[in-house]
């Protein structure tokens, strides 16, 4: 009886493993196919060999002006890195103040900031376009980066506030007795204890900003400044029938966040859970 239920559990888990890994198999296997194989095999058949032709075409297509995700990858790095750094540091400061220097109405301020996390961004998209145009930041990576910083504040503040509430307030009090002020305590006591918090927030922000599409597709119009998600979507237009090129593009788009997931998975999950308020 007990043994049979164990068998059933593993059978079900393996079944779901197939469901989750089948698309992974498809994307990897098909990215190694040649043009000839695309025409003669279904997406399920393994490739004859490892051919990086499709990867090269996805990065820089042989036809001029037909897109390619190469520039998109570079743009995404340029856009993502400063946005992750600034929104994390900013969130850390907010979270520190809201949890360790509580004042009347601190919870109200927190709720006020948090609301921005729960709106559909469509509700701010049109004025954002106008605003960025006025500042001549529309269609620039700086504008995209700034957007991601601004709308990253709620989540980074939330995660850091939860994180700092687990740091004993006595540490802060001891430092203030020694004469440290708000900034002194932050620099000497809080920051050195914040590394795990920064890892969680950093991975969360990196993943969300890298993977984002709505801002990317609406705040840029020129392919030379589009992030990689938009470039990948355009690839489907210029290589409509060539699934090998599209799959290669999909892999390369996914590699940075996949690496973060593989090597820092524990922190990734923590960020995932923290994103749901309770942490």
């Amino acid at each position, binding site marked *: 009886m007990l043994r049979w239920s164990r068998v059933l559990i593993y059978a079900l888990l393996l079944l779901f493993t197939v469901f*989750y890994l*089948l*698309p992974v198999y498809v994307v990897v296997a098909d990215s190694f196919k040649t043009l000839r194989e695309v025409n003669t095999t279904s997406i399920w058949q393994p490739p004859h060999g490892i051919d990086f032709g499709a990867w090269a075409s996805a990065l820089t297509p042989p036809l001029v002006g037909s897109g390619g995700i190469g520039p998109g990858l570079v743009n995404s790095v340029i856009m993502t890195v400063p946005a992750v750094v600034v929104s994390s540091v900013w969130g850390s400061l907010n979270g520190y103040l809201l949890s360790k220097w509580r004042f009347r109405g601190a919870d109200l301020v927190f709720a006020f900031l948090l609301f*921005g996390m729960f709106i*559909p961004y*469509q509700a701010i998209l049109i004025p954002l376009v106008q605003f960025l145009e006025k500042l001549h930041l529309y269609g620039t990576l700086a504008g995209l980066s700034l957007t991601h910083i601004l709308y990253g504040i709620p989540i980074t503040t939330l995660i850091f506030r939860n994180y700092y509430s687990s740091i004993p307030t006595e540490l802060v009090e001891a430092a203030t007795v020694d004469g440290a002020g708000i900034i002194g305590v932050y620099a000497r006591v809080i920051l050195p204890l914040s590394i795990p918090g920064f890892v969680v927030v950093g991975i969360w922000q990196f993943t969300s900003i890298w993977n984002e599409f709505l801002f990317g597709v609406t705040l840029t119009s020129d392919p030379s400044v589009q992030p990689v998600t938009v470039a990948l979507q355009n690839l489907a237009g210029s290589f409509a029938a060539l699934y090998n090129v599209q799959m290669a593009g999909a892999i390369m*788009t996914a590699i940075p966040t996949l690496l973060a997931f593989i090597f820092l998975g524990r922190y990734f999950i923590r960020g995932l859970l923290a994103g749901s308020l309770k942490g």
Partner: protein
Amino acid sequence: MRSRVLTIVLLAPAVLASLVFVYLFIAWTFYASLTSWNSVRPLNGILPDFPLVGFANYQTLFATARFWPNDVFNTAVFTVTFIVVSVAIGLLLSILLDQRIRGEGFFRNVFLLPMALSFVVTGTIWAWIFNPNTGINQLLDPLGINALREWLLSLSPLTPLWDLLDFLRIDILRPGLTTDSRSALGAVVVAATWQMSGFVMAMLLAGLRGIPEELREAARVDGASERQIYVHVVLPQLRPVLVSVVVILGYISLKIFDLVFVMTRGGPGTATDFPSIFLFVSAFQSQLWGLAATIAIVMLVVSAIVVIPYMWSQLRSEGRA
């Protein structure tokens, strides 16, 4: 006292940014939705300098078949199906993984892996899997699934069921998949579930691990079977986590854009069109900014109905703790 002032000064940039880029921008969008700004002419001042037309854009929107009933119908079907299927799979997986499994870490990582991907990547892959000519049909036809599918669809007692699924556009037995308006929405639901059910599993597993072992032990001593323990002891304890999960999935599905945009572009016809896609087309292709702002406000209101009570209860329960 001095520190109080400094605290507020240091928090001010975030508060100001939030005030402008969230609250004032929402007000701006609402104002735009009340104007006749439905042309390519760029704005001169800070606010849309077009005549106010009251709620005319709202009347137009709800008189447009593409939005009402079509987009609202799709959003409702998608939201309910996506939440039910994701929660069912996530719950099953979390309970399975809670049985002291060998290789738990491996399974957990496999189920969570799609969470690291962009919806654009997911959409690209699943568009090919659900392509009727190259995709899943090719894999399953040799296994006899086509015959089974035709047989199932021809069973007359099941006809009402297929009619219902056809009507809901989630009848993925239809071989046309993303090209058939009776199944296209179902294809998008499967892709979305593939991406998000691991998140549900992670949340619920964390919830399960948070339940004190003594509670289960006590029930065991009282002679409860493992199944009874799950139904009567464990699941009620998971309720708060389940509420979080449903709200988060609901928030995601009410504004879903990238996945659908990449997989089907809202088609065939408007079979998988959503307010977000209609908004995108209205604003950035048709230059109907007033109408687009109206769609945005409707989306915001619907999301707020789901999210604000949740945020409120979370912050309150936190205050009590």
